[in-house]
């Protein structure tokens, strides 16, 4: 049984549809620009890839804006777009009413969420001032100062809940809070759920809005941020740059998609997920996790490394991660590495949304048979070379793409997809 993608949605700094984002990337446009969401004039890091799409365009229901947080707006928007594109709701409307409950029970959702933010806690700052440091006073004044729905507004599983309510998808579900790995794992787990017969169709979502002063501050302190461009695998790369946004996909069995007569955008082939056991920040310099995740994904997809036509690398622009990623890729592919690209130089690092955004863009790349260039790449790092990255576009050497996603906590995830109609 093959599992196919029948809906896509994405939003980030360079666009609010998959096509817009892909076009921007192909044209060398990056969303990385001076920060406007807070006054960073005196900061050592003054850039980010902000997503400045208006809230009412993201989610039309203004009442909902008050009960969810910024990251949730992105997630709901991308999911709605993917679900509409799959035309599952229209299909359900035409169904025999007696079959609808089963259809709903067999439709699942998995979201990958950035989870807890510092920003959410700032709702308590006025109360701290009122309480003048006294906890007793803090407790007494609580109800007069803080929104009674505060906790619900900040639940990491809000997108799951609201996408569920909007589309009445009542099947298997969860919210993965595994930092960068969340969104791409949502896709892998969704495909696994269909394979195992736990659901007939799944909506997978990744969303994040990591870009806030305290996070920027701490990443900077740890030396992880660039203060200008994000240059993956470049000799002069200086770190990553935050972005914000979301992506979503609808997955279902190919037979169901064909029977419904909907457009198929690509096929899920396999995934691998491993941990390097290196703690919160460290990565293994030998690329162990990267290569193991790829090997597992190849075995899961039942294909050989030679069948991979292109690679979308994690390429977050930090020294340690990019170097070890390249080594890990070479451990698998030897000297025959297919064309490699990455998209964070344009979209910024979307953290929990990064891997799933890379996935939808990989499918766009396969469809258009273009491996977009990395516009910010000046000079390949000799310590990484030979590594087939380029400032200009390359051509995929086959119809399958490998997507790599790495995260804090030693996480490494690889996912393999194939273009439609092949």
């Amino acid at each position: 049984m093959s599992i196919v993608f029948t809906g896509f949605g994405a939003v980030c700094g360079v666009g609010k549809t998959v096509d817009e984002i892909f076009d921007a990337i192909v044209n060398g446009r990056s969303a990385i620009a001076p920060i406007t969401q807070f006054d960073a004039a005196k900061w050592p890091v003054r850039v980010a890839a902000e997503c400045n799409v208006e809230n009412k365009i993201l989610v039309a229901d203004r009442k909902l804006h008050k009960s969810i947080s910024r990251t949730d707006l992105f997630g709901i928007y991308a999911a709605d777009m993917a679900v509409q594109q799959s035309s599952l709701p229209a299909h359900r409307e035409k169904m025999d009413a007696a079959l609808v409950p089963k259809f709903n029970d067999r439709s699942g959702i998995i979201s990958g969420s950035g989870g807890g933010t510092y920003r959410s806690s700032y709702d308590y700052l006025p109360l701290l001032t009122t309480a003048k440091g006294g906890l007793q006073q803090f407790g007494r004044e609580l109800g007069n100062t803080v929104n009674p729905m505060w906790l619900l507004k900040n639940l990491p599983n809000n997108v799951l809940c609201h996408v569920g309510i909007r589309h009445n998808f009542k099947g298997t579900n969860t919210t993965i809070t595994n930092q960068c790995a969340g969104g791409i794992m949502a896709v892998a787990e969704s495909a696994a759920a269909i394979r195992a017969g736990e659901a007939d169709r799944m909506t997978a979502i990744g969303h994040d809005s990591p870009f806030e002063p305290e996070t920027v501050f701490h990443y900077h302190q740890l030396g992880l941020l660039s203060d200008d461009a994000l240059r993956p695998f470049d000799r002069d790369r200086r770190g990553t740059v935050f972005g914000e946004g979301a992506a979503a996909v609808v997955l279902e069995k190919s037979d169901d998609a064909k029977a419904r007569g909907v457009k198929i955008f690509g096929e899920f082939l396999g995934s691998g997920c491993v941990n390097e056991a290196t703690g919160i920040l460290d990565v293994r310099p030998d690329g162990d996790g990267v290569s193991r995740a790829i090997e597992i994904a190849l075995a899961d997809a039942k294909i050989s490394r030679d069948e991979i036509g292109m690679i979308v690398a994690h390429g977050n622009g930090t020294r340690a991660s990019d170097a070890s990623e390249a080594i890990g890729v070479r451990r698998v592919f030897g000297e025959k590495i297919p064309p490699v690209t990455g998209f964070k130089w344009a979209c910024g690092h979307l953290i929990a949304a990064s891997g799933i955004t890379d996935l939808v863009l990989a499918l766009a790349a396969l469809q258009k048979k273009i491996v977009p260039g990395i516009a910010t790449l000046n000079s390949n790092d000799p310590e990484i070379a030979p590594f087939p990255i380029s400032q200009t576009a390359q051509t995929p050497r086959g119809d399958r793409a490998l997507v790599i996603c790495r995260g804090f906590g030693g996480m490494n995830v690889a996912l393999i997809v194939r273009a439609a109609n092949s």
Partner: protein
Amino acid sequence: MNPRRKIAITGIGMVTPVGNDAPSTWSALRAGRTGFGPIQNFDASGFTTCIGAEVKNFDADSAVRDRKLRKFASRSHRFAFAAAEEAFADAGIRPENSTAERWGFSVGAGMMGFTFDELKNVHKFCAPDGEFNSDGLMHPEFSADPVAFCRSQTNAALALLTHHFNIRGYATAVHTACASGGQAIGTALKAMRRGLCDFMLVGGYDSMLNPIGLSGFCLLGALSTDNETPERASRPFDLTRNGFVLGEGAGFLVLENWDAAEKRGAKIYAELAGDGNTLSCYRITDSPPDGDGPIQAMEQSISDAGITAGEIDYVNAHGTSTQMNDKSECAGLRAVLGAHVENALVSSTKSCMGHLIAAAGAVEACVCSLAIRDGIAPVNANLETPDPECNVNIVRGKSQPKKIRAALSNSLGFGGSNSCLVFRNPEEVK
């Protein structure tokens, strides 16, 4: 198709408000001893609810001997370390270099990253007048604490535990509020059936017993306000129930392939036999009064386990002690169990431990394992005036000996996620 892999539970560990390990927790639950009292860890006297179910006399130094690691571990991470270590020791197996890549990890992770003291520090530099000004972070005296930042990451416990115990295979962390722990175990079951791992460390941890966590629940009016009678405050299924008591802690289990566990002569508590997982799609805080959502989760888990509802001898209910949950859950139980509802014993161990939020489902999975091992359905404490609308066979007064062929555990979360797990007695597994 290959016959489905059977998964054995071979180790358990718990840190709870009624005991800092599994044996002491289980003996308290059997005796119906509760762990409630005025909150001691901070001055909660001004809050509408100032009682809680705190973990007591927890020795963090011995739970996490590695000092560097201890620094990176928050209060709830430390509970996780202690419970995980106990589970490994109990199972008599742990990752070695030769097996590390076949070990996986799945955890229901608490949602609180920052601490109250960190927020106070931000307030001092960025918002003395209440309004956040980001330039305060640039103040030379603002202490940048990279360790606190690391600790605040959503997958910090995953990172620390996989690192410390050398788990190098599949790893995930989930958060669906009160369903987190159950869903983490369900995720693990599915990963093992897919053959991704041969062994897994699974569990949940949480502590929201701090000024911000307590605030969140006080604002929602979800907590019992029986500040004068804390020991009776959590009374699931009682007509007079008025909210839950916030708890904290961790529960972890070691899972192995059944055949391999048998072969090495491991003691097997139970088969982790079935998972059911649905979304209510109703409202963010409420479950549908007719039990829709939980019903499908329970039915799925029973059929996934390959048994019938008639074999469920014990139900560890979600039973939070809120009006809404308990009513809806009982409606669901009646629908699923049918005539067998007369026989199946039901209790909510939240009546003793309080609600451990993201850890609840994991701790309650440990409880189901022990209930099966000892043939005892633990008491639902504090039930004095049964609610006629909660018309199920609740274990009242004292714990009840009974051979348990299969146990079912519900975890129903804010946001509408419903997780239901089924555990089978090893004697019933052929």
